[in-house]
């Protein structure tokens, strides 16, 4: 690992939602600040900056990561996915996002980006989860508006829909 000077800014390059991006970061710059203010991807939110609330959760090389507990220089060369990359097109919603809207699974929407990222990664690994497993996953996120149940329902319905789509694709 290269030794970085605290006084200098360093070029950080990675792919964000499939596209190459780069920017300048001091070694202490948080990934959350870097994504939001240097790259301009403001969909990822910051709620506590100590890793508990989960609002800043992003996918780094397939692993769920708290962007507020990660330094920007750590993601050099990584593939990052954020909420901006979930929808299939700019005027459409993903299956999971649409389920969130249908079930009123968000109110202020501030915690939502991190929750969508966690569920997106989770449902890929566990396409047919129990309600208990979904609640367990969601317990890594704090939401003060919804009481969580609408999110659980949205996740379970999205999982069923995604299984259905995959089943059809497999048989096609």
């Amino acid at each position: 690992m290269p030794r970085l000077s605290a006084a200098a800014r360093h070029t950080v390059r990675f792919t964000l939602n499939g596209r190459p991006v780069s920017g300048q970061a001091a070694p202490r710059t948080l990934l959350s600040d870097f994504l939001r203010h240097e790259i301009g991807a403001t969909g990822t939110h910051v709620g506590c900056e100590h890793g508990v609330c989960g609002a800043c959760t992003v996918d780094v090389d397939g692993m769920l990561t708290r962007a507020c507990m990660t330094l920007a220089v750590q993601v050099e060369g990584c593939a990052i996915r954020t909420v901006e990359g979930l929808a299939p097109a700019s005027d459409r919603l993903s299956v999971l996002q649409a389920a969130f809207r249908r079930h009123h699974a968000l109110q202020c929407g501030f915690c939502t980006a991190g929750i969508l990222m966690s569920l997106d990664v989770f449902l890929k690994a566990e396409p047919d989860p129990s309600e208990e497993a979904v609640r367990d996953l969601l317990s890594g996120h704090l939401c003060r508006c919804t009481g969580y149940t609408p999110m659980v329902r949205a996740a379970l319905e999205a999982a069923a829909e995604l299984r259905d789509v995959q089943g059809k694709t497999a048989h096609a």
Partner: protein
Amino acid sequence: MLETPHDKSGGWVGRAIERVEDAALLTGGGRYLDDLGTKPGTLHMAILRAPHAHADIVSIDTSAAKALPGVAAVLTGADVAGLTTSLVVGVKAPVECWPMAVNRVRFVGEPVALVVAQDRYVAEDALDLIEVAYEMRPAVVDPLAAMDQGAPLLHDGFPRNIASDRSFRYGDPETAFAQADHRIAISVRYPRNSCTPIETYGLVAEYDPHEDAYDVLANFQGPFSIHAVISRALKVPGNRLRLRTPRDSGGSFGVKQGIFPYIVLGAVAARVSGRPVKWIEDRLEHLMASVSATNRATTLTAAVTADGRITALDWDQVEDCGAHLRAPEPATLYRMHGNLTGAYDIRNLTVRNRVVVTNKCPTGLNRGFGGPQVYLALERLVQRIAVELGLDPLEVIRRNLVPADAFPYRTASGALLDSGDYQKTLAAGLAAGDLQGLLARRDEARAAGRIYGIGYAAVVEPSVSNMGYIATVLTPAERHKAGPKNGAQATATIAIDPVGSVTVHVASVPQGQGHRTVLSQVVADVLGLKPSDIRVNAEMDTAKDAWSIASGNYASRFAAAVAGAAKLAADRIAERLARVAAAQLNVPAEDVMFAGGKIAARSNPANAVPFSRVAALSHWSPAQLPEGVAPTIRETVFWTPPELTAADADDHINSSLCHGFIFDYCGIEIDRDTGAIRIDRYVTAHDCGTILHPGMVDGQIRGGFAHALGAALLEEYAYGDDGSFLTGTFADYLVPTAMEVPEPVIVHTQTPSPFTPLGAKGVGEGNCMSTPACLANAVADALDISDVRLPLAPAAVAALIHGAEPPAPGGARAAPAPAPSGKGERLMRGAGKAHVAAAPEAVWAMLLDPDTLAAIIPGAHDVRKVSDTKFTADVTLGIGPVKGRYKAQVALSDLDPPKAVTLSGKVDGNLGFGGGSGRITLTPDGTGGTELSYTYEAFVGGKVASVGGRLLDGAAKVIIGQFFAALARKAGGGAGTDGGLISRLLARLSTLLGRDAP
């Protein structure tokens, strides 16, 4: 589940359509304050905060901070006071309320200085360079103790820390108590908590010196009466304070009203630095120093007949507003003043309301606002009445509810309960939630030896606050002098553009409730359009928009007041459009209807013109407007309900316009071993009048329920007796997660309000009022106890079952139990041994040598010898997530060379303070080395205690271990008796704790 609005026309109100807000929020396209970008050259503010709960500021040295490259300005309280006036205080008393401490700090987290710099990182670096010397004062945190003779005084203008003491009497309470069969009382404490929105405060402020005008963008939520408070503090008229809000806000629940002192700070910072200034609050700042609900100590006594009828209540409320009485406090205490009899028909009432200040964060708006505090007392009392009279609690509720034929019902203290059928709602709740089944489950659980309880609560949920209720804190004479205050202006504007499309603007400042969606439904119905045809803007700009003091999002006023105002504005536009269309359709205006995007003759729907053509006419051909018809370009309605009158000479006050009703009950089971509470079933039956959007109403109920569950079971802003703040992270201030929040059974009845344009009432706060009381009653029932303290965290409940935790079993290696601290800081005790390969005399010499101490005190640099037994040092230490610099003073005493010495010290820094002492005993080991044993006692306070509390014991052990390991190494003897493995572990731990390995 929400429905996708396709092509259905008409009747949009009452349908749960998908929200227009959601697509942007789900795809990262939100426009929250910190997403909006700033002008080039914008600077960033960071705030230095008090580590002590009560202390005089002796001196502040900002020179090093000012000299740091990138820093534009550093301001202290004196600088801020020089450019502003004190924030107004809501009671008549000679006290000041500054947004930044002037001469004295009164709560942990109070702003002491601010830095403006090129970025936030540099601004925070500069905070570390500000040196503040404090002279400590004793602190008081308990509201009852604060009133004691001799208690530390916070403000000279509040004798015995009492900001207000008013007594009220309604009806004939003396006779009622004299004639009562029973007199039943309860004392309760409502704890400090907050709804903690996930987005914190944020603002961007600018100043124009040529016009002496401020422009502030902030995620403020209203009420905009606070605009007058801010402009007054900034010494400008209202038209020189432009206050704007972003489109999206990441939750508020009342809390973001409390940003206003920071608006003053940001505005002054922008003025001094000559550049726009941005500030985003961090989570520690938010938990420690934003705002909280009031904690309250209440004794409530009832006069009760033999059959459980309550004939009088006697309230004694002591409200704790924290260190300053910030606007609009003491509103939390008076918001419920008309509703102190709850849902019950009780004609006689006495009230004593005292407002006290303590060394805690100032209080402010928080979901429920006064309701949780009142209903915890009232509904616990109803349960106690049932227990003491041997009645079913449900029966006591039933016998006292306001009768269905009594509406509108004037309560003893003056509220006008607009409508309801409480008996019907109660019956609907019982049926839908299957109370009988729940009672059977309780019998079954108890028969099996399990702990199970059922609780009830019946509450009236007030909404749309009377802007005049706060004046009830003043005496009638003071009110007379100040002039009457009343009403609740709601505003809505409907505009039609040159192609005939419709825009709605409201001053409602939503924080996720979905106002834009509901307004599109309301206006679509009036104008015969689809919700997707209507564009709604709910951003606020006081320089351009219609607004008034009641504007904003609080007191559950949207559905009842704001949506109603939008309906009235749409009606007015429709009335004019009908007259324009009538001329074109050749029918009387009364025959015109709006449907399917057309304006048509009701008698012959084929006779129609497109809505947009009629709507655009005022732009393109105003001369074609029929005689006497005003243009239809824009219509603004200000609506205030006439029922919201000022308090009368006898202190009757209709504190709110609408009154919903909630009946809750629940079954809970308590784990006998852990004390954990499992909610078996929670039923909540509501009557919030006409429901405009069923999905959003249920969303409000679920969200309020989750907040209330947190308040009842988990959340408390905890303080040490010395005012140390102990819950500075979301790992310490626990809020409910998906694992703790069950889905309540939600039941609706609808009795429209006769006082609102749409028949709607508020619904967003009710469960915050009913649920804590309902859960507390269930726990009282389960454990057969009368004194229930919130929050009912497992450890507290386990103590109720098993008694207090017994001391840990003894043993040679057992750590001494944490000692109770007289002053309330985090106190730690420990002991240990080390081996040094040098004779006691050599070790003794090392302990007295500054160079050696510099080398062995963990993180020490710049050790200076003040005298033979006194040293000072700069120390850099990391505990948990907090690494910081401290100034240390070390003294040696009780010297017994070369056998024993007491080493005592004190550290102080921006991240906190601490101190302690240790006795070191040196014993020759017989082989030329020294056995060294030590005991220590240490305390820590300030930010370190707030965020690192759970880690402190471990961290203290590690740091002290490092000291002796270093001493052993320095003596040339290798490691101490710990051995290599322990040292490596220590090194690893200390790396984790944030400092370099020894």
